């Protein structure tokens, strides 16, 4: 597969502080790629460099075949962006904002009207199209931002926390549409998110980033396997210690613990390991009364790589409120 984005030692320093530290990664055409990381990890800074808003201090990236440092104008023509902060003009209506952005991409008026109507319909803002953006709620503004990012039908779409502060229903609706568009136009999507389950569910590959460095890259499944695979819990009726020895004798089993008559362990693939274990136990006339196989959650993956827990809803809402306050301050 060809690469839509290829970062080569991409670096951004602010004074002595390195926000993004020589990162390398590739995003393939047509895939949904997510940056997952805690506050201040360097996600937004990376997106800003990839979307040519800010220049890298060192290194570069190829976006859609163009070098972000040498051919920024070319890059801008083929990308769409939904930045983390609000970017619509509050004094204009939603419709006017869309038409303005369309004009900046050189989309002919007629075509722009059609697309704007379609996009407003998709984000369910048609009813508010002629209202000043100032009167929109946070969720409405975010939906408008997404529509604005899609108006040029980009080859590569950058979404920086696209569903931040939205309710579950709207989040699902937006992902649904983004996926439909992706199918229709073969769009590549680069996104950052705080929502672990969103990354898990919608991203084909994930990069975990912290302190400006990429700690791991892979499909959600691969990342979970790297953490050590599934957690299996078996409750036995019989000699627990014999059972433990049986379990420990199975290939790939790690971290065996026993409490009362419950054995817990990790194994790369719980689904195939379980029958083998049950059979071995059966031979020794030890009966398993219950067995559960749990895939590791993204939360555990995240903890493993960053040493931190990402408290989903909470941190994002907090972030969102902080952001709202910033805007309120700027407006005074």
């Amino acid at each position: 597969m060809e690469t839509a984005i290829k970062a080569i030692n991409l670096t951004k320093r602010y004074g002595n502080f390195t926000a993004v530290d020589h990162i390398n990664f590739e995003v393939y055409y047509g895939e949904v790629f997510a940056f997952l990381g805690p506050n201040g990890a360097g996600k937004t800074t990376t997106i800003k460099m990839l979307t040519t808003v800010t220049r890298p201090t060192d290194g570069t990236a190829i976006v859609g075949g163009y070098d972000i440092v040498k051919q920024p104008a070319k890059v801008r023509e083929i990308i769409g962006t939904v930045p983390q902060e609000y970017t619509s003009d509050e004094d204009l209506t939603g419709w006017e904002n869309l038409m303005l952005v369309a004009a900046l991409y050189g989309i002919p008026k007629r075509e722009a009207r059609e697309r704007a109507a379609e996009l407003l319909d998709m984000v369910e803002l048609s009813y508010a199209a002629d209202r000043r953006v100032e009167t929109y709620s946070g969720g409405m503004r975010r939906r408008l931002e997404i529509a604005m990012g899609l108006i040029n039908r980009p080859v590569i779409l950058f979404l920086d926390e696209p569903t931040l502060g939205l309710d579950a229903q709207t989040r699902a609706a937006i992902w649904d549409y983004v996926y439909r568009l992706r199918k229709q136009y073969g769009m590549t999507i680069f996104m950052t998110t705080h929502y672990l389950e969103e990354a898990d569910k919608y991203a084909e590959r994930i990069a975990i980033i912290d302190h400006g460095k990429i700690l791991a890259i892979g499909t959600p499944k691969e990342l979970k396997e790297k953490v050590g695979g599934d957690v299996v819990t078996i409750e036995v009726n019989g000699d627990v210690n014999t059972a433990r020895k049986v379990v420990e004798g199975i290939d790939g089993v790690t971290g065996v613990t026993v409490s009362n008559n419950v054995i817990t362990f990790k194994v790369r693939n719980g689904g195939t390991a379980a029958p083998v274990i049950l059979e071995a136990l059966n031979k020794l006339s030890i009966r398993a009364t219950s067995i559960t196989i749990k895939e590791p959650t993204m939360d555990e993956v995240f903890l493993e790589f960053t040493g931190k827990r990402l408290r989903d809803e909470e941190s994002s809402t907090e972030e969102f409120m902080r952001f709202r306050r910033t805007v309120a301050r700027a407006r005074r």
Partner: protein
Amino acid sequence: MDMVVKLHPLHGLWALTNRELAKWYKVPVILIISLIQPIVWLAFFGKSMNFATMFTSGLNIPGLNIPKQVIDEIASEILKANFGTTDYFSFLAVGMLSFITLFTSLQSGMSIVWDRRLGVLSKLLTTPVPRGNIVMAKVLNSVIRSLVQATIVLVIAILLGMKLNPGLTPLDIVGAYVALTLMSMGFASIFVTLALRSTSWESQMAIMNLLNMPLMFASNSFYPVKSMPWWLKPVAYVNPLTYVNDINRQLLLGVTGLNLLMDFAYLITFAVIFSLIGIVLSWRYLSET
């Protein structure tokens, strides 16, 4: 992208200008408020400082029996020698055209600061619109606003008794507008350029307030350069306002002044140099660091 659009160099310029203008004509209150100051100057100052009547009404020096006609003659000659006309109100009215243009142009820096603070700028920067056009849209907006406001001030001045040159031709009016356009371009470019990196509207406001009055009073807007102290004269001759007023008084009032061609040459240089500086610096400094 399903279609390849060929983007011309001015692409997005009008869309961005229109965005700014839309904010303006949607809220006419702003227009009205910005017109108050020049009109107050005209009505209060222009009508009160009527030098012609000051000299003639009730000027009666004891012991000397000077005929009124002589005093009138002397007064009007003095006025002519200084202002180029006996009609101070019309003299000031022309000054007010550049006054409103200056004030409008100085504000153009503010809007780029707001665009940065409210995030609009970061959106513009991800689109293929040339950076120079983001700057020039602000300048163009300022020019259009200035001309509309100057027209309103001119009409009000005429209603209040401004006397235009009886031999006025359409070309004279075009010339006056060109002068105002050039001045607005130059000043708007300077202030947009100063604001390219700024996120503080307070500092922008401070620069505005610091400069508007000195620029007004170090020009021939209120009084002729001749009557200035020697140290102020060179400043007035650098100040573009002086040339705009000189052109407009010659064209609109028919008074004599400096060489018109030189006036225009000065203003064109002023406008072109600062527009170019604005465009060139925008490539480098509009993006985030």
